């Protein structure tokens, strides 16, 4: 123990936390890895587990429900993160203007992201309600045919959910990118202005390139958060109509914790972790694993 203390120095201070994470994060994750190799259903009264090797994984890769939910997830992540980034950038530039009252605007923009995602989802479920909802009334006023409402129709439901996410999280991107703009050294832009660059050129050739690292990291973080999307799907559509809004997360929840086919559910969650790990590695590559000492 004394030797360990010396060799690891202050890192021994992390041991309690690491022990906790080992017991309640890594052990469960390892357990998931193990049961993903079994045919294991809690609904089976005999409680039998049969080792099936990679069969759960092979089944997953051929399962149209899994592939459909994966498609929905990727569409959701791609469209939402992209639009949030573009809108966020626009709003960030707007916030960066030297106008009185902007500090208030920034504070007010915080409102949506402070809401519990469940509550945000409930608000939008009400807004989308085909009878009374404000959105439905607006669309009706504009003469747009509603059918069973935006979330009631298979071809619009996923987009309606994407909008909820855009509504809740664009402000975060806006404020992040605004902070990025504010931390840029002003000299380069001033020099460009002296050389006769107009505002657009200054933004396009000076600010935007300087902002690129922040843009990349914010996009990756947002994409990883979007892979967790669950609350709004659960609350607003329950994956429906049909399977139009079933994302991978929700599908895993259904398989593992509603149908209690835990072996198969674990295999699916391992696959999801694999996908997110790619983004995580990308993120690590961008911020540089371990090479920036304090």
């Amino acid at each position, binding site marked *: 123990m004394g030797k360990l203390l010396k060799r690891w120095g202050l890192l021994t*201070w992390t041991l309690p936390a690491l022990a906790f994470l080992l017991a309640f994060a890594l052990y469960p994750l390892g357990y998931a890895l193990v049961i993903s190799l079994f045919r294991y259903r809690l609904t089976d009264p005999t409680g039998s587990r049969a080792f099936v090797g990679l069969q759960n994984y092979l089944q997953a890769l051929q399962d149209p429900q899994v592939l459909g939910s994966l498609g929905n997830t990727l569409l959701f992540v791609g469209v939402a993160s992209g639009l949030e980034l573009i809108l966020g950038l626009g709003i960030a530039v*707007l916030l960066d203007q030297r*106008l009185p009252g902007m500090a208030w605007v920034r504070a007010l923009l915080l409102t949506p992201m*402070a809401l519990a995602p469940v*509550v945000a989802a409930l608000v939008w479920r009400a*807004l989308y309600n085909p009878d009374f909802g*404000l959105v439905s009334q607006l669309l009706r006023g504009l003469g747009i045919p509603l059918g069973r409402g935006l979330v009631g129709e298979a071809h619009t439901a996923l987009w309606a959910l994407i909008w909820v996410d855009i509504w809740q999280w664009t402000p975060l991107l806006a404020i992040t990118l605004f902070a990025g703009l504010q931390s840029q050294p002003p000299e380069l832009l001033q020099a460009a202005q002296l050389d006769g660059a107009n505002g657009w050129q200054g933004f396009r050739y000076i600010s935007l390139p300087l902002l690129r690292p922040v843009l990349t990291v914010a996009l990756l973080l947002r994409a990883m958060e979007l892979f967790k999307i669950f609350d709004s799907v659960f609350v607003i559509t329950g994956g429906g109509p049909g399977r139009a809004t079933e994302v991978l997360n929700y599908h895993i*929840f259904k398989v593992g914790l509603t149908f209690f086919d835990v072996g198969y559910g674990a295999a699916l*969650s391992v696959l999801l972790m694999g996908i997110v790990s790619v983004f995580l590695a990308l993120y690590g590559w961008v911020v540089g694993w371990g090479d920036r000492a304090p």
Partner: protein
Amino acid sequence: MKLLEKPEQVPTTASEVGSRFVWDPRHAVKRPLRWLYPLLLYGLVALVLLVFLLPLGWMLLISLKTGQGSQTINLFQSFRPSWENYRALWQEVPVARYLLNTLIVSVGSTLLALLLGIPAGYGLARQPGSWANGLALALLGIRLFPPIALLLPFYLMMRDLRLLDSYTGLILLQSVFKITFVAWFMRGFFVGMPQVLEEAALVDGCSRWGAFWRVALPLSLPGVITVSLLGLIFSWNDFFSPLVLSGVRTRLLTLGILEAFSTYEVAWGRMSALGVIAVLPVLLLALGLQRYYVRGLTAGAVRE
């Protein structure tokens, strides 16, 4: 790696910003139309605020309407605000019970996360070398993983330990999500704090623990308070862990709201009141803490 230190460096008020050069589209315009630009910009600001705040304003207004009026489309027609919905709701739904449950679990898990996370953050901040950096990023990695991957095995584990529908199970699960965050956040805080005073304490014969306990920890109190409040907000907003682990006895607020909402779907006023009750405390907290709140959410995105 200086990701989380010194929020003061970002100018946030107009006067602070005024001291430096900011890109300004007015430069792009011919002089005679200059006066239009602030107008245009304020128009855009108004549009943005409308889009992001209208849904909540709508909910607030409806929650203050009563009786027949709560179903009508024209909001301002004979609008007389009343607390009727809130009063009735308090009697019909065990809101107090949900609040108490949420309070127990959030305080418990936050305390546990602080207890384990602060020393971890301190160790990571004060130990030079790539091991510490790698470990810190691994912690961040755990935070970014999808919770569903953890929830399924965690559910089985808690079932075997007979901890379903218990405060303990919920506290343990929420602590997992919080510890990595606390360690990561506090590490940034300690990194940004000058070491001189701690070194002086060490020279004066303090142990490392003494220097931490008597010098570093008191100085980091603002960070500790921030991270605690963020931890409480996380519990308040969390939906996944109660959905999977809680039962009749330990129902937390978010799940309670969802169930009550389904009951009140037609009773617009009640439902909106419930929404407002759920939103207000955390909204006020987040507004008060806005810089730190954003910082907690974007940990890793912006460096200075």
